[in-house]
């Protein structure tokens, strides 16, 4: 253990990330690695949209958060380096700031992932923003996967009263809503990954 190097400490994303990480989404005239469109036109799977807002401990809408999603394909497989070598493949990665949408939502257009390793279908999420010194991990599960959610080993680690913060309700066909609350009685569950 003693010969391990010390990790580089984390620091906040800050408020001015948009032209660096989400340039096109915010109207700058240069590109970004990934945006809210995770599924391509030719991606196999059930089309879904996942959207939500982020709220601080006073209930105020957070306008400068960045949400990233990492997900499996419809068969429960995560894209590998070979998939990323093909610009036109499914990459399973999305990135969306909350400052560009008039309602300060993040929006992901994707396909519902397959489950894997006994886990229910879910989106892995990184949330970061000004005021977070470390990025946070959470997950988006789907309310219409109740049977799979019942046996999910990660949800089982979450106290029952807080599990619903991780389960996105289906608000209309194909559209899931996932709001994130940083603090308070219904604070979203964040993981120590």
């Amino acid at each position, binding site marked *: 253990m003693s010969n391990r190097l010390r990790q580089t400490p984390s620091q906040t994303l800050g408020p001015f990330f948009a*032209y660096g990480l989400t340039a096109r989404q915010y109207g700058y005239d240069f590109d970004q690695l990934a945006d809210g469109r995770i599924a391509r036109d030719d991606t196999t799977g059930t089309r879904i949209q996942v959207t939500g807002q982020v709220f601080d401990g006073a209930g105020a809408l957070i306008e400068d958060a960045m949400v990233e999603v990492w997900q499996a394909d419809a068969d429960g497989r995560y894209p590998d380096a070979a998939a990323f070598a093909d610009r036109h493949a499914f990459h399973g990665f999305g990135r969306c700031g909350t400052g560009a949408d008039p309602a300060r939502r993040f929006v992901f257009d994707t396909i519902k992932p397959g489950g894997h390793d006994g886990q229910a279908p879910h989106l892995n999420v990184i949330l970061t923003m000004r005021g977070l010194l470390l990025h946070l991990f959470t997950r988006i599960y789907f309310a219409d996967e109740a049977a799979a959610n019942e046996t999910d080993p990660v949800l089982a680690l979450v106290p029952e009263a807080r599990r619903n913060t991780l389960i996105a309700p289906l608000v209309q066909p194909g559209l899931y809503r996932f709001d994130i609350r940083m603090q308070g009685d219904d*604070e979203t569950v964040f993981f120590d990954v």
Partner: protein
Amino acid sequence: MSGFSRLQPDVQPGLIDPGYRSTGLRGPKAPLIRIPHGLGETSGPRFGAGWVGPQDADLTQNGRCNGEPLGERIIVTGRVLDEYGRPVRDTMVEVWQANAAGRYIHKSDQHAAPLDPNFRGSGRCVTDGEGRYRFLTIKPGAYPWRNHPNAWRPNHIHFSLFGQGFASRLVTQMYFPGDPLLQLDPIHNSVPADARELLIARFDIEATEPEWALAYQFDIVLRGPDATPMEP
């Protein structure tokens, strides 16, 4: 399956930091719930060499409109390693920063300092076979913020890295040696005292380009597969 190493609490900041005011309503208060590492944590986005263009790592070129950007040209280079010192190859490094006057092109930056029409302040590159990255840029200026009266951020460059899996993601900031604002900066000071040096680049005369640009070396250590190294 074996997981990735965990965060080292003796080097990482906390989520709610009394000196950094914005953490008060944004840092979660409930304890984080530890989960084992599965496929979703040990795999991750693999943006490689095909995702960078020829000028992406040269911030003195990629924002040009009608001339050269103003300020001190510098080289920022280093290696991306895991905790066992193994190079992290072919991994994406994204950077963004203020210009020489301390102004970001970001639309919500209201600081009364000039924009530079020839400087954008963002770039990316992918590490080579030894985990090395290299940017040519302009030394960023300090700028004020409203955390406390007369608060100024030290000169810094923002870094975003993916590493080998979703669990190894890192967002951080690189600082410059000898900056008098460092000891006054609540963001830098959110890191335990004896780990703060890890965020300060080292001036490196060997990496300078004579008659062209000074160089700073900033090595980055990411979490990675938690294999115990062989010991005799």
